[in-house]
């Protein structure tokens, strides 16, 4: 915008006559920001500060003077280092299976129908009760003399080792993650405008074509979000790795060395260091997945006006 010399001087003069309050308000700073204060204090004091506190003690090892020794000790010990791989080996399949299992179910359940509340209730049970309760119940159902194996024996299939190993933790994790995915995806599928499917139908698309060409592409950003959240949940597996897994071996996930360092060795510095490593890995995964999601179509799932 071109202004004359006088014009520019006028606006500058006008701007300097505006009180500070108005200038700040234009940029969004006014008294209402005070409403944020309690939240800021809580997050700042109970999350941000401990984060930096943890970071600082991670550089203060119990033994020796090398500030990085907490990290190097962890990364140089193959048993400890492998926990990263083991965590991924558990989390990725759990997330994939949970999304793959829940998606068709959520798709079928996206519209309201008579038993929907009841089904949602049943699916929410594992989610509500949590992994510790699930782990406890799994003992009776999945162990050697448990119901599943009794059932298999009746049908003539040999006994399966479904608990106190990788499978145990896998089952416990999926039992909690699938309902979460079901609820999330049900919301996403339901949010796709019905008239789009109708339009596709009138243009000759069979039910399958409608799903693959219309519903799925429009739901894929939601699916990536769901997968991301599933992965985060699966990464956090802890009690079930101990209770129904093989904490020394197959399910020695990243959370366990943190627990061991803090509870058994009282080495909070080392625990903080491992926690930091875990955080970094998580953030890398999140950044990757969010980038992937942004590449897929991200518009609204409606067909036009109204």
């Amino acid at each position: 915008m071109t202004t004359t010399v006088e014009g520019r001087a006028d606006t500058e003069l006008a701007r300097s006559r505006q009180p500070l309050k108005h200038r700040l308000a234009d940029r969004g700073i006014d008294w209402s920001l005070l409403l944020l204060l309690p939240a800021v204090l809580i997050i700042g004091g109970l999350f941000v500060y401990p984060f930096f506190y943890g970071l600082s003690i991670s550089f203060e090892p119990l033994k020796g003077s090398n500030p990085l020794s907490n990290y190097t000790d962890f990364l140089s010990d193959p048993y400890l280092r492998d926990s990263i791989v083991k965590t991924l080996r558990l989390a990725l399949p759990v997330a994939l299976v949970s999304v793959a299992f829940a998606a068709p179910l959520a798709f079928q359940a996206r519209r309201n129908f008579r038993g929907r509340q009841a089904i949602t209730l049943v699916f929410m049970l594992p989610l509500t009760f949590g992994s510790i309760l699930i782990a406890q119940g799994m003992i009776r159902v999945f162990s050697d003399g448990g119901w599943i194996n009794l059932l298999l024996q009746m049908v003539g299939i040999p006994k399966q080792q479904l608990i106190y190993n990788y499978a145990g933790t896998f089952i416990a994790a999926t039992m909690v993650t699938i309902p979460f995915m079901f609820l999330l995806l049900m919301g996403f599928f339901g949010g796709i405008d019905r008239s789009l499917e109708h339009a596709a139908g009138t243009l000759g698309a069979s039910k399958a074509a409608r799903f693959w060409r219309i519903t799925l592409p429009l739901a894929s950003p939601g699916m990536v979000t769901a997968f991301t959240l599933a992965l985060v949940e699966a990464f956090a597996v802890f009690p079930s790795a101990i209770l129904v897994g093989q904490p020394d071996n197959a399910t020695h996930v990243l959370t366990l060395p943190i627990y061991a360092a803090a509870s058994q060795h009282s080495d909070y510095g080392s625990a903080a260091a491992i926690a930091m490593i875990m955080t970094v890995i998580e953030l890398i995964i999140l950044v990757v997945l969010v980038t992937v999601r942004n590449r897929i179509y991200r518009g609204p799932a409606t067909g036009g006006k109204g």
Partner: protein
Amino acid sequence: MISPSLSARRALPRPSLVRRLSRVTVTSVITWFAGGCFGLLAIAVLGSVAITSFATNWRAGWWPAAFTSRWYGQAWNATGISQSLLVTFQVSVAVVLIALAAGVPAGYVLARKKFPGKSAFMLVMLLPIILPTMTYAVQLAAMMYRFGLGGSLPAVILVNLVPALPLVILITVPFVEQISPEVENAAKVFGASSLRLFTRVLLPLLAPGVVAAGILCLMRVLGQFELTFFVSNARTQTLVVTIFGALSDPGGVPEPLVAAMTMFYMIIALIGLVITFRFSNPADALSRRAR
């Protein structure tokens, strides 16, 4: 005006059953079957705990040999469950109240206002629920101990606030966005002060969101393990921590006793679930929560 064929056609019956069956596809049958299996499994896993809690002992087989209810009395008196129940109640109420008091106003500001640093704030605020609690539980506990709060009830309340507050904010924001700013403008034009605007207009409109957030917070605190585990001691444990302790006790707590302990937790969680369903649709709350 009515053609002769019309009157004949009007008398035809409807082909009902065949038509309805043709709308069912193979994939939907498989899907529903799989869903049914999952539902059965969930009920089996959770139901087995209930059954175990009433068994004298249950070595093997489909069903326990005999039933008793003595485990419940023992659980109540000897295992510290009653103390944990009280603690859990106190912590939940405190966390929900504080999280709502801090989170709803924050959610309002985030929904309505733009300010420098907003995106950064939102990102930091979301981290506690994106990252696994284990990544910050230990540092938080260490800090609590350093300030002399280790093992105390306030410590348990404070640590549970960390994932609860972002949850409240995340749920409040879409609810606030749903209220058109014009409604607030109208109230102001007609003379409502900020306080009256809040109590007479915003709060009633936000009530379902506040209730949903409160309930979800409650469930979160109930199931929260890692955070509470590292800062609590025997007198300030919540239910899940006590149960975990019994389950991983090398001394071998009898299975039915642990099951009875768990049943206390289960009943409370069930009550919470029923309340959730009475007041809101969790699918909506969750789908609004995830971006």
